[in-house]
């Protein structure tokens, strides 16, 4: 196919341009694939472990996070109606010397297990399994897990549970039936129920009871009877419901990552658009000649599109490889965030699902074809023998300019209007944001021309004729300048938007922590902050602490998780002195009145995310399942809280004790008579606690710093994405401007022939690229800020219900402008060098 050769050789003659386009697509695809792989691997790991643990149960009986009294199970058994039931005690342990690894401890009753889980062929038939019963402190693991931990059969395995040193004896193997099973049983320690209660400090309590209820009417009847039979504090939920509500917890977080990765792809798309547009503009004479010879429009259209697809294919393949590499890194970050914020998840390996990779291919190719569509049409419209001169093309572009500006403004208006409509749809918000970006891109060329015209006199004054020429060239070459500038603006704006969003969020959290954390010292148990509820503090501690001089007041707190059919909520039981309550932020309502209600009536306050997720408002009634059955509480106020994206309910301690039977405490707030002495007091407290319980003691400042560290960890992924967007932007600027200059080779050669020295050529070329870079950087600022506003005011609010302060850090803006300017200067170097080096005669002959 000679026709195709004509096209491809052209591409081969401009390897740098193609390289950059390929890299642009590759980076875009890599980011999307990496995020998708990391997310889906986390999901998969979660699903597998949930399946392994819930087994074939159809329903589960649960209670508050303090657990279900053991007696419930005994009564259930005695009643004789629900044979297929198995008690479970579940918790987590760290292993000394194995940082980052969390073992899931699953306590079971080997006799009841039969119908639920089939871990090993030996189950229920004596062997290792029955030894769990006869040997207290014995546990089973898969061979793979044992190997990883380096324990031999019969050896002691040291564990760290809530900071306490414990151990189990490893007595035998769990034998998964297949590959999936072995993944699911990874990092699982199976013990007898009594052992688990002992290890986890849950004497007399169960985490839950698994049930298999028959299907159909019989099942429904059985369920009804069960509900009547159960004590008030317990509830039956369907087994899959539980997995769903846990998966839901991370959904907004994952969705946000996906959207950010799409932003990177969008920037990559503009790169392709830019490259293909340039290659078409440059080839206009060639395409015209082909048309004269009788090559049809369709053939030319296909030619350009196939070229783009090839670039896309190359970029996509490269992107997939890069994405897999990147995913390995991101997976750790995503998993860490999930562990920090949501629940324990061990994701050891990346699951390379064909779906994730397929999505990457589809997106990469789809984006390329979409981006190349307009340039291909433009190519097909080339008149034979290019009857149109360059100035007519530019003339047409100029006539199109008002249309572009008009439709861009229209798009932005629609997008703004759409964003104003109250809705909870996150995808819709992202689509509207992408519309805003596209609209801005359409307006950019017009704005750029307008600015350049204004700049001309100034440039002439400062840089003489060359300065003026640079600006004039850019205006005259609108068809190229416009596209390049728009591409740059989008790339740079993306980095500004995400940067400002993270910055604002951090500033908000910082000032919130400052106001919210009122006590001088915080004490809590050594738990990783996950699992169902924290380990309670021992009673003696409180007594001993109260004797320490210098302490003015100690408040007790309890963190609980309330699980129900419609999800998991966090209940924070606290004693809040009026002075501390002043540190709470309320969006509406009189703080005095709220405190009045909170401290004396049957009322609670809920955090913003909680109210948002459940469509609740101040004054609404909230139904909670207490140990005395369902009770309604008035919502006295909605407060700002960034501690949990699931949201939390805060309740006065006396109220809690009235309805719940478990009066434990897992955290203390300590107020000192002299705040300055807190470092000293921290020492005293830890000495006092040393022989009783392992504790974490933070001074106010330490806790603030630790919280911010968690925040930074949470946003590590986002920051990585931002960095990648910066990289794509950099490549984009390089690509667009280099293409623009290379395309002008002939024109520059004429200038050289006309007496421009190589020195002057350098000045002209880098002056032009620098000017565009600067312009793009400046034009990116408003869009970047707009994007940040959408992210803060719309997307974060819709994803998490958070309201945030807006902090516009000038440093981020300056960085972005410098990035654009620097990359643009750099982009001018190669063409300038190339042109200064080649003989004008040679350049004139080329094409």
């Amino acid at each position, binding site marked *: 196919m000679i026709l195709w050769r004509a096209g491809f*050789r052209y591409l081969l003659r401009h390897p740098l341009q193609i390289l950059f386009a390929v890299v642009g697509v590759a980076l875009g695809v890599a980011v999307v694939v990496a995020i998708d792989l990391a997310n889906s691997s986390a999901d998969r790991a979660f699903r597998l472990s949930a399946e392994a643990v819930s087994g074939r149960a159809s329903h589960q009986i649960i209670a508050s996070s303090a657990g279900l009294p053991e007696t419930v199970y005994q009564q259930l058994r005695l009643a004789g109606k629900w044979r297929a039931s198995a008690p479970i005690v579940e918790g987590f342990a760290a292993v000394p010397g194995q940082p980052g690894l969390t073992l899931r401890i699953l306590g079971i009753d080997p006799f009841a297990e039969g119908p639920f889980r089939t871990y090993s062929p030996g189950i229920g038939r004596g062997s290792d399994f029955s030894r769990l019963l006869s040997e207290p402190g014995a546990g089973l693991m898969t061979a793979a897990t044992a190997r990883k931990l380096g324990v031999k059969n019969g050896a002691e395995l040291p564990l760290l549970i809530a900071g306490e040193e414990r151990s189990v004896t490893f007595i035998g193997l769990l034998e998964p039936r297949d590959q999936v099973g072995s993944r699911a049983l990874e990092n699982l320690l199976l013990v007898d129920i009594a052992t688990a209660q002992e290890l986890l400090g849950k004497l007399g309590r169960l985490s839950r009871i698994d049930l298999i209820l028959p299907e159909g009417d019989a099942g429904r009847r059985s369920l009804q009877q069960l509900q009547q039979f159960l004590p008030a504090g317990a509830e039956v939920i369907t087994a899959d419901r539980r997995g769903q509500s846990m998966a839901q917890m991370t959904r907004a977080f994952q969705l946000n990552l996906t959207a950010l990765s799409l932003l990177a792809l969008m920037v990559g798309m503009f790169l392709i658009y830019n490259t293909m547009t340039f290659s078409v503009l440059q080839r206009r004479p060639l395409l015209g000649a082909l048309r004269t010879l*009788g090559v049809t429009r369709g053939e030319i259209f296909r030619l350009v599109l196939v070229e783009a697809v090839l670039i896309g294919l190359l970029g996509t393949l490269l992107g997939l490889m890069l994405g897999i590499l990147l995913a390995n890194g991101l997976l750790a970050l995503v998993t860490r965030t999930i562990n920090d914020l949501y629940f324990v998840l061990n994701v050891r390996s990346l699951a390379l699902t064909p779906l994730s990779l397929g999505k990457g291919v589809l997106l990469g190719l789809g984006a390329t074809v979409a981006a190349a569509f307009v340039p291909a049409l433009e190519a097909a419209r080339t008149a034979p*023998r290019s009857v149109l001169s360059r100035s007519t093309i530019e003339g047409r572009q100029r006539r199109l300019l008002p249309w572009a500006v008009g439709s861009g403004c229209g798009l932005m208006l629609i997008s703004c209007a759409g964003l104003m409509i109250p809705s909870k749809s996150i995808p819709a918000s992202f689509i509207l944001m992408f519309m805003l970006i596209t609209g801005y891109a359409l307006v950019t060329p017009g704005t750029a021309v307008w600015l350049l015209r204004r700049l001309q006199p100034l440039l002439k004054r400062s840089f003489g004729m060359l300065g003026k020429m640079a600006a004039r060239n850019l205006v005259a070459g609108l068809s190229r300048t416009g596209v390049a500038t728009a591409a740059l603006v989008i790339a740079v704006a993306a980095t500004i938007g995400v940067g400002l969003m993270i910055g604002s969020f951090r500033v908000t959290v910082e000032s919130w922590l400052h106001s919210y954390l009122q006590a001088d010292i915080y004490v809590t148990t050594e738990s990783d902050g996950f699992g169902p509820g924290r380990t309670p503090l021992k009673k003696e501690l409180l007594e001993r602490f109260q004797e320490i001089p210098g302490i003015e007041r100690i408040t007790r707190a309890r963190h609980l998780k309330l699980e129900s059919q419609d999800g998991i909520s966090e209940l924070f039981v606290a004693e809040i002195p009026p002075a501390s309550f002043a540190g709470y932020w309320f969006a509406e309502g009189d703080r005095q009145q709220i405190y009045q209600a909170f401290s004396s009536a049957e009322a609670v306050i809920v955090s913003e995310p909680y109210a948002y997720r459940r469509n609740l408002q101040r004054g609404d009634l909230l139904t909670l399942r207490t140990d005395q059955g369902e009770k309604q509480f008035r919502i006295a106020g909605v407060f700002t809280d960034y501690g949990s994206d699931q949201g939390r309910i805060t309740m006065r301690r006396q109220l809690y004790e009235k309805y719940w039977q478990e009066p434990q405490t897992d955290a203390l707030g300590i107020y000192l008579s002299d705040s300055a002495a807190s470092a000293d007091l921290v020492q005293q407290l830890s000495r006092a606690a040393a022989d009783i319980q392992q504790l974490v003691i933070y001074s106010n400042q330490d806790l603030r710093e630790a919280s911010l560290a968690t925040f930074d960890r949470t946003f590590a992924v986002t920051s990585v994405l931002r960095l990648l967007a910066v990289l794509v932007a950099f490549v984009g600027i390089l690509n667009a401007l280099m293409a623009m200059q290379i395309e002008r080779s002939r024109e520059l050669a004429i200038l050289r022939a006309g007496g421009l020295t190589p020195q002057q050529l350098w000045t002209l070329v880098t002056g032009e690229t620098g000017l565009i870079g600067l312009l793009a950087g400046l034009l990116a600022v408003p869009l970047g800020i707009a994007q940040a506003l959408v992210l803060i005011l719309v997307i974060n609010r819709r994803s998490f219900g958070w309201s945030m302060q807006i902090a516009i850090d000038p440093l981020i803006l300056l960085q972005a402008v410098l990035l654009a300017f620097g990359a643009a200067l750099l982009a001018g170097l190669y063409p300038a060098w190339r042109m200064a080096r080649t003989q004008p005669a040679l350049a004139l002959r080329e094409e």
Partner: protein
Amino acid sequence: MMNDTLVRIDNLSKSFREGDTERVIFRELRVIIRQGEFVVLLGRSGSGKSTLLNLLSGIDQPTSGAVIIGQQNLTGLSEHQRTLFRREHIGFIFQFYNLIPTLTVMENLLLPLELIGTAGAEAERQARDMLGEVELADRADSYPDRLSGGEQQRVAIARALIHRPQLLLADEPTGNLDAETGQQVLALLSRLARENRMTTLMVTHSLDVARLADRILTIRDGQLREDDVPKDRL
């Protein structure tokens, strides 16, 4: 006699719109070109010579009137059909930018053959023969930018003739060359055209060239006139 007619131009008018003003280039042209004729088109710069050639090849559309080549009325065809007609029946030579810079000389010749569906060894043979005719057999694998202007125009001639079009259109093919080279190229062009019994319409400014013609047409003030061929041709 009718069978002899290759090109018929009927009441052909063309005007360009520029903003609000309409500029008429020519109105109601009528002319007939017979099979195998070598016709030269003269006229001042801007008189509309290139425009007429563009209309004949279907690159451009007339304001009114008809262009009939063989049995085919070009004005009745769609853009796509005109393109297909062009690749089959018309050969084109311009003043410059004739060759595809990304294709070698050989490939430039193969392209028109490929477009009409001739490929493989047979196409190669034809291309080599044609290159031999224009005495560039040894430059088959060069890219156009390595050739001199005269050599490039010789390749352009070869390419315009290789698929044996019915009509050869040449728009100042030697305008870019020095007088002597121009003469050589022109001699080659007219020899090949006559040998292949090709109908040719050539735009030129040079009266010398006009001596080679069978007929001379001149555009003036939007009208086409038949002039006598200068006598000293004989």
